[in-house]
């Protein structure tokens, strides 16, 4: 309905004022191209992570040790699919196409969280993922509920509510193993040993090397720095590990009275970069499985479309 295009500086001023006032930007508002592109990149990567994240745990559904555990794991994996859909919808409000985003994932042009390129070797990994990987995700996502872009923030509110069950079931799973036989306890400890460091890497590179951080903070997409969130996560986990009766695999872990935080050892960023480059243990497997699943589902999509077309004709 607008006939005269207001000049860009005026629009940008309105945008800046909205962000500064801590109000939300909504889909039909004017926004800088770079803000839009940055959000699409982040939300798509987040959506991809949710659906790729279904794989490592789905690996254990058929071998869950009880019906209770199996039902829980299925519900969790189904939630991850749901989270992916909330996020793809949010990305679409910015003008990105669903097919286009999936193509980008399948062809490796968009990334997903590196954590899912590690294998789930034992049943205890289902617990370690819930406790540590989902725990780190929650630490990242809670501040995103206040992100400046409305649809993304709203999707995060829903996701965070659901994630808390994910984290608690993982913790309970590990607790059960930890209180079990010596072999079960060892299995739980081994899983924590393998997932701890990759979980810390989930917060992204250190602040001084993070490519998008400063701009994202200025736009209030991001509210806290990578290192800040990582520290918060470590501080939360130490007492939780103690209650589990398991240890975190870091000899440098020590309470620092001066800082009021736990000090922790150096992170192997060379490993992080290798996995990011595609050289992790499961990069190839995850993507080919995803492509295969998409192709295998083609007939369902076609059938649904054919049915809709036929019904449409019948009622016309």
């Amino acid at each position, binding site marked *: *309905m*607008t006939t005269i295009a*207001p000049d860009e500086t005026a629009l940008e001023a309105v945008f800046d004022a909205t962000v500064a006032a801590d109000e939300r930007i*909504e889909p*039909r*508002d*004017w926004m800088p191209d770079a803000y839009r592109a940055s959000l699409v990149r982040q939300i798509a990567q987040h959506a991809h992570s949710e659906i790729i994240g279904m794989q490592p745990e789905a690996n254990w559904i058929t071998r869950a040790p009880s019906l209770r555990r199996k039902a829980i794991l299925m*519900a969790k994996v*189904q*939630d991850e699919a*749901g989270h992916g*859909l*909330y996020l793809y*919808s949010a990305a*679409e409000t910015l003008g990105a*196409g*669903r*097919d*286009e985003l*999936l193509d980008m994932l399948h062809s490796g042009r968009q990334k997903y969280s590196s954590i899912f390129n590690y294998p789930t070797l034992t049943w205890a990994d289902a617990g370690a993922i819930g406790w540590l990987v989902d725990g780190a995700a929650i630490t990242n996502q809670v501040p995103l509920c206040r992100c400046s872009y409305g649809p993304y923030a*709203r*999707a995060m509110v*829903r996701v965070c509510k*659901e994630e808390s069950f994910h984290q608690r079931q993982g913790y309970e799973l590990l607790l059960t193993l930890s209180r079990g036989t010596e072999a079960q306890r060892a299995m739980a400890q081994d899983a924590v040993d393998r997932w701890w460091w990759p979980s810390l890497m989930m917060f992204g590179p250190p602040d001084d090397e993070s490519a998008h951080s400063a701009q994202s903070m200025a736009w209030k997409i991001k509210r806290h720095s990578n290192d800040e969130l990582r520290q918060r996560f470590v501080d939360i986990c130490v007492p939780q590990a103690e209650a589990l009766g398991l240890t975190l695999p870091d000899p440098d872990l020590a309470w620092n009275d001066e800082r009021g935080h736990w000090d922790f050892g150096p992170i192997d960023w060379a490993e992080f970069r290798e996995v990011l480059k595609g050289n992790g243990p499961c990069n190839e497997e995850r993507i080919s499985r995803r492509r295969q699943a998409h192709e295998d589902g083609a007939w369902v*999509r*076609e059938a*649904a*479309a*054919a*049915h*809709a*077309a036929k*019904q*449409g004709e019948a*009622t*016309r």
Partner: protein
Amino acid sequence: MTTAQPAETPSRPADWPLWEVFVRSRRGLSHTHAGSLHAPDAEMALRNARDLYTRRSEGVSIWVVPSAQVTASSPDEKDAFFEPSGDKPYRHPTFYEIPDGVQHL
């Protein structure tokens, strides 16, 4: 379920129409916008909405509406469009001064 069918239903899901989903969380409350999804027809949209937005008994009733059918006010003219109510504070009860001690008013 005879709600608007798109003229043609393409086979690529991304080209399927977008539906806005409204959920009534319990009797006595109105339907509230929950989000959106793609589906080839209204029936599939309802089923998908159930799976996507009510996995934890969040609803007792769902509406799905083709997004293309939603007419929205333009964000560019929001000030002018909503301006008529801006200078009428007398529509609010707090506008009026009542002496202390007067009750039930």
